[in-house]
């Protein structure tokens, strides 16, 4: 029988974030706050053109400036030093630039001001080339090429998938809808901007303090850079300080990190590169923009028959994880609701725009916007209630989807119920007011996109009953430190405050693939739980001799190790640990555990159970549309999520609320505006984030399905909050005023144009 929250003493409790007090006192140390002795300040010069040949670079004036220690150009970058998973991007470009964010030179100086001055002294002669900025045009045969050595702007990617028989299913469908949707560039807007400090020891081993979500994979990237620099067999230590937000932005290594390494090596001093806000907008990556064609159908009873989707992704000038987002888009396309026949083709196309990366949801918000907008259109065409069509087609526990996803637990129906309980969907709202609903599926039990989806944990008991946990997982504000502490404390009968969680230092912590795919609670949680169970067994074994009872009779609670029903056989954990330590032939109690989930990489057929379990949710929005101005006001918002189990509801709500508001920005206000490859709104005045005044109070019902593989039943919840927000809003706007906006963001201008068209 599944456990309820009352069975736990620490899991399920609203324990405040362990580092919150330190942060509230202004004592948390971010990269901006770190100064090392002798540290220099690096700065990067970017291209003046979207596409140009570099004819000449003269750095002599910059080199001569007092206080400048080093100036680098593309000539100083080793040939093999390249970034991105297809290694198409050197940290400083040589001979040619392909986007405005292409790095052309870098300096290190004794102050940020001198570094900036030095950049102004670098003279570059460019020869401008024709740029290509529209991905659909870039796909045409006679399009200019972004990279001359390639035959086409279209990347070689495997996204051409067909499950079942879409053509046949379409013929047999009673109702079919078809449309085109687009999604925009948006960016993470971490309040703490990017930065890194690189330094070498006398033996050429590197330590780099950097804002990253992937300490272990970043270590591998940096080792490769060192190798390219001729520094083989060296050590790299990656230390991630407290970071001011991640949201996927730090899932790849960036040019500034590799440039800091080059400068530090050249100067033999620590070199810090820290971005200002403009640079953060221009030189970090965006969410992948998409052009989406969708066709789907149902039978006369509303049962989905097929889904056929085609996408064009603007890859920008270089390749980062944005180009792999179709692997996650495939999940909602093949598996949001039961649909047997699915086709999906995605093309990633080089342009002279900025390149995209991972951002919360990893492709899912884009795909779900099209799917869930289209679901409402299909419901209307079939004359079926929009809630009903979702219930008819809902995923259920025990399903295996065409992609091969195994749905172990599914609370989608309960989520839909929870939304319907809070909001009216009878179409009887006052004029200009409407409600919308949209659902989601997301990976909730890891996501195998790499050779290993694992995470290690090392657990060390001290002499006083306290525990140090060294986790591969990364806390970036989401609260992984609490989750690990609560899981370990629960297992060992301790309090969360007895657990010290050490993370984000590759010299100390075991390997982990990174803080992405909503995987940390599940994977790092299971790793910590595994280590705690091992150490528990060791303690039981020791206590069994001490108490002269079988090991399995020994329990842990309230910092005591005891045999239930026998008051004589009870000892504070700390005392027992000291006994173990200081007895003849003494022992320290420690354990390690590596958890790699039993999920699958997608094979050649692009099938496979990529996650151990899936998170579900349904969002409901009530909006008011001002028909005079086109402005959309969000009146109420409900975000119901199947989370398996809430290890910490206080922090979990924070993930949902934050995700929703990020999703509302995606739906209504946020857009990186790009003109001929140049970002026009690289600041918080023109890039419109929701403020406290715009945001609305959110209700977040938590549905617990107690997943069999999750730590204490938990699934991931980092990303889902921002996945179905845009379609919930778009559907509510349609309900309110009868216009369907298919291009994000839904600005007042777009609403007004659509209203005018409708009324004409």
């Amino acid at each position, binding site marked *: 029988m599944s456990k309820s929250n009352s069975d736990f003493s620490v899991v399920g409790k*609203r324990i*405040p*974030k362990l*580092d*919150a*007090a330190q*942060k*509230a*006192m*202004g*004592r*948390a*140390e*971010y990269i*901006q*706050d770190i100064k090392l002795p002798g540290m220099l300040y690096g700065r990067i010069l970017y291209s003046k053109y979207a596409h140009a040949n570099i004819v000449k670079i003269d750095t002599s004036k910059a080199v001569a400036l007092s206080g400048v220690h080093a100036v680098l150009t593309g000539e100083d970058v080793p040939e093999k030093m390249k970034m991105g998973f297809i290694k198409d991007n050197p940290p400083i470009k040589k001979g040619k630039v392909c986007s405005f964010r292409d790095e052309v030179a870098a300096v290190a100086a004794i102050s940020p001001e001198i570094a900036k001055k030095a950049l102004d002294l670098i003279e570059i002669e460019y020869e401008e080339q024709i740029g290509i900025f529209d991905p659909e045009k870039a796909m045409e045969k006679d399009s200019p090429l972004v990279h001359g050595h390639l035959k086409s702007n279209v990347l070689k990617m495997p996204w051409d998938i067909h499950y079942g028989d879409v053509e046949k299913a379409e013929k047999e469908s009673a109702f079919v809808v078809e449309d085109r949707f687009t999604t925009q560039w948006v960016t*993470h*807007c*971490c*309040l*703490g*901007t990017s930065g890194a400090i690189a330094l070498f020891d006398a033996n050429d081993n590197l330590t780099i303090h950097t804002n990253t979500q992937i300490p272990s994979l970043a270590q591998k990237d940096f080792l490769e850079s060192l190798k390219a620099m001729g520094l083989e067999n060296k050590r790299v230590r990656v230390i991630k300080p*407290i*970071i*001011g*937000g*991640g*949201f996927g932005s730090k899932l790849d290594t960036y040019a500034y990190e590799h440039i800091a390494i080059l400068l530090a090596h050249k100067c033999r001093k620590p070199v810090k590169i820290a971005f*200002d*806000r403009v640079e953060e907008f221009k030189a970090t990556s965006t969410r992948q923009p998409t052009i989406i064609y969708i066709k789907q159908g149902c039978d006369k009873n509303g049962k989905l028959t097929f889904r056929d989707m085609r996408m064009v992704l603007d890859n920008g000038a270089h390749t980062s994880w944005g180009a792999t987002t179709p692997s996650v888009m495939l999940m909602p396309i093949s598996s949001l609701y039961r649909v047997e026949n699915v086709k999906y083709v995605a093309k990633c196309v080089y342009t002279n725009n900025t390149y995209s990366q991972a951002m919360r949801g990893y492709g899912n918000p884009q795909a779900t916007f099209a799917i869930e907008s289209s679901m409402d259109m299909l419901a209307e065409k079939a004359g079926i209630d929009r809630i009903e069509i979702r219930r008819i087609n809902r995923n259920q526990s025990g399903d295996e989807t065409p992609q091969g996803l195994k749905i172990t637990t599914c609370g989608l129906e309960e989520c839909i119920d929870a939304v319907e309980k809070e909001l009216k969907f009878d179409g009887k709202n006052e004029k200009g007011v409407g409600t919308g609903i949209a659902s989601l599926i997301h990976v909730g039990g890891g996501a195998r996109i790499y050779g290993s989806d694992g995470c290690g944990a090392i657990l060390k008991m001290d002499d006083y009953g306290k525990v140090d946990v060294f986790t591969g997982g990364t806390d*970036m*504000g*989401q*609260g992984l430190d609490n989750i690990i502490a609560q899981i370990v404390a629960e297992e060992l009968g301790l309090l969360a405050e007895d657990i010290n969680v050490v993370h984000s230092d590759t010299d100390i912590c075991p390997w982990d693939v990174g803080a992405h795919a909503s995987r940390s609670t599940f994977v790092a949680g299971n790793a910590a739980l595994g280590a705690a169970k091992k150490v528990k067994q060791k303690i039981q074994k020791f206590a069994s001799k001490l108490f002269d009872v079988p090991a399995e009779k020994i329990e842990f609670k309230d910092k005591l190790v005891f045999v239930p029903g026998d008051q004589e056989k009870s000892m504070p954990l700390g005392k027992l640990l000291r006994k173990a330590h200081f007895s003849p032939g003494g022992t320290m109690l420690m354990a390690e555990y590596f958890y790699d989930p039993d999920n699958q990489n997608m094979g050649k057929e692009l099938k496979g159970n990529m996650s151990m379990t899936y998170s579900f949710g349904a969002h409901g929005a009530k909006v008011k549309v001002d028909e005079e101005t086109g402005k959309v006001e969000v009146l109420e918002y409900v975000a119901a999520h199947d989370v398996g189990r809430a290890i910490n509801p*206080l*922090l979990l*709500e*924070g993930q*949902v*609320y*934050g*995700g*929703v*508001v*990020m999703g509302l920005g995606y739906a209504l206000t946020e857009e990186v505006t790009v003109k001929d490859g140049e970002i026009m709104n690289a*600041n*918080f*005045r023109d890039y419109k*984030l*929701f*403020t*406290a*005044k715009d*945001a609305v*109070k*959110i209700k977040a019902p938590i549905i617990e399905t107690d997943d069999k593989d999750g730590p204490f039943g938990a699934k991931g919840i980092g990303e889902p909050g921002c996945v179905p927000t845009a379609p919930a809003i778009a559907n509510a706007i349609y309900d309110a005023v009868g216009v369907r906006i298919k291009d994000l963001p839904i600005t007042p201008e777009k609403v007004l144009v659509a209203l005018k068209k409708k009324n004409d």
Partner: protein
Amino acid sequence: MEKILITLNINDKPCEVMVYPNDTLLEVLRDELDLTGSKESCGEGVCGSCTIHMDDKPVRSCLTLAMEATGTKIKTVEGLAKGDELSSLQQSFVDHGAVQCGFCTPGMLMSADALLKINSKPDEKTVRKAIAGNICRCTGYTKIVKAVAHAGNSQDHCPDCITFSKAKE
């Protein structure tokens, strides 16, 4: 341009510091005085991360020259707690889960603290207005708004206020 010696009154302590006439107060706090609690996120007065108090009023320290601050009472986030004892507002932020990555937190606290000085029991709308100039990307603001509204005024129906009150007993 030459540096000038000025005296600033920060967190009830006078401190002498050499500044350039065009140094912002934020630069001086962070780089000269090692008071790194105040954060720079946009550098142009939009995000509120650098908010401090000047004579009890919230001010963007990135838009204020250090020279302008002479003769005023400056308070930074480092001045909110008494030693290691958090102020009731700080404690409320902790208890209500209003802190995630924490980068906006110092500025958010300073804006909220200024509000509470003139209105100790603000309603939700008032709180939202008072912190509308402070951007947060993590929390969706819900818990921050609650933390400010409930600071020092524990609410019976709030599970986090209950946890807090019990812990205090």
